[in-house]
């Protein structure tokens, strides 16, 4: 089952729409609550990242019988050094974004913590694609 969402960069009022919809679907499927929680936290963080940093993005969620595969593709500044960005506390968010309670530099580490599999590809000046896969049962 495929769910697609467009994300508007800079519009924090709409941040969380995708994670909220995905959460509803997973609850209805009867996916274990703690599994849903990890997926939603990872997806929400990644969604906010697009809003905070990119001009626009597309989120494609593929819900399978045993797992969820999420792709978040954005047009944006890209990430220069992914391993640096994965460190807790590292942030390039503007003062404005931080004042709104975002951009504390916990985003990517938090995604990593909650994703079973995480893959990030990025080109500076073009954009970033994040793949998150979470399984419903522990393999």
């Amino acid at each position, binding site marked *: 089952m495929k769910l697609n969402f467009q994300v508007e960069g800079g519009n924090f009022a709409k941040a969380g729409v995708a994670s909220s919809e995905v959460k509803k679907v997973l609850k*209805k499927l*009867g996916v274990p*609550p703690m599994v*849903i*929680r990890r997926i*939603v936290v990872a997806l*929400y963080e990644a969604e*906010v990242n697009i809003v905070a940093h990119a001009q626009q993005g597309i989120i494609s969620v593929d819900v399978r019988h045993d797992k969820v595969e999420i792709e978040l593709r954005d047009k944006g500044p890209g990430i220069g050094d992914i391993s640096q960005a994965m460190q807790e506390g590292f942030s390039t968010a503007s003062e404005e974004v931080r004042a709104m309670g975002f951009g504390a530099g916990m985003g990517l580490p*938090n995604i990593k913590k909650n994703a079973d599999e995480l893959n990030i590809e990025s080109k500076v000046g073009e954009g970033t694609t994040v793949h998150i896969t979470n399984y419903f049962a522990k393999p």
Partner: protein
Amino acid sequence: MNQSNQLELHHAIKIAPDKCRACTHCLQVCPTEAIRIRNGKATIIPGRCVDCGECHRACPYHAFYVEQDDLSRIFDYKYRVALFPAVFVSQFPENISEEQIYSVLKQIGFTHTCEVEQPISVLIDSIKDFAQNEYDSESPIISSFCPATVRLIQVKYPALTDHLVLRNAPHDLAAWYVRQRLAEEGIDPSDAGIFYITPCAAKIAAVKSPVGEKKSIVDGIINMSEIYNQVMAKATGVTGNFHSCDCRNEISREGILWSLPEGEKAAFEGKSLSVDGMHNVIRILERLEDGDLPDIDFLELRACEEGCAGGIMMTGNRFLTADRQHSRAKNFPKAQSSVGMEDLAEKLRIAPVQPRPMVHLDTDMEKAFAKMEKARSIMCHLPGIDCGACGAPSCLALAEDMVRHEARMTDCIYIQQLWQKEGKISAEKAFRNLEKRWGENRFDMDCSKRGAKNDNGFGLMNEGEDADLY
């Protein structure tokens, strides 16, 4: 039906079918989509209902009621204790004194009176002890004071049950406390009945089937609006005095404010957030699930706006009640130390609260998957108007009912209309379908409905009453 395993759960909210006109107001406000119209009457899906009372509030026909024990049952006991929360006192007009309110309770037949929120320091210290020494998951801890929000979390936010404070509510504390007091007076426990007067359906449901403990300590429940009427009728005639059987020694400022917004929050250091009103509670729980709340140590939730001052069986206005409660609190000292009451603290512990997720389409995930795909296809056909004329709260809810085999395509009046135009169904058949959902003769002319010529206000006229008198 995957909801059947929850049938043993007790609910306090009931529907009087003779009053229900299936006007669909309740459908739209239910936070767990627990209501459907069947055969022209609202019905509640038991496993989904959290007893919050939003339907009770929304119903223009007063068709929802809250079950209670008969007041005469208090006379089954030699000693009769009225256990009531501070909001009960605060909702009366200023010209009725506390002494008069207490006196009327005794006139009704209670031998002892006890306000619920005492000795509150035992609860405060016990919750602090839980936070510091027992809780080892992610912050925040969530208050378990409001039983409607506890049930909401079990049903709709099952991953958050781990956050709940594993402590009883003040009414349990006060019930144990008053039992101790009675014992001190030399009263045999089997001679004493404790009756809890409450403004809250969820509290009643919680007392009848407590979450996280085996048995509740109170012997009966009395609907607060009934006692309110008694006090209003009798208070002006009594010259009230407090009496030695009034259990008032532990009334404190903190206790009086406990059930209002920020009542619990005030007792805790660290960052805490107080949220009242069902829709606000839902929004904050969604954010907590998303991991989108800043670090908060304590989350206080109240399903009713203005906390218990806005309880569904409160007669007084919630803002006036809260205001009087704040004024009243100033007359009482700060809560005394809980030292020496460790045995009471022990009574407050409850077992972990179990999640009981109710929103899934099937207990088998593969089947749920197939059902969801089918529901999504059905949604392509439904109009997306969410009018409730099918008896479900939304088009999506109807589609999900269909895949559970609890509803049919023709329940949608727009689909029926379309099918008639396309010649797929006769007008006769379409109308019969409507009557199946809404009841026979439901569409006959009826001048007694709300806003119609002979609208007599709330409720049905009793037989023999002459409508012309009005």
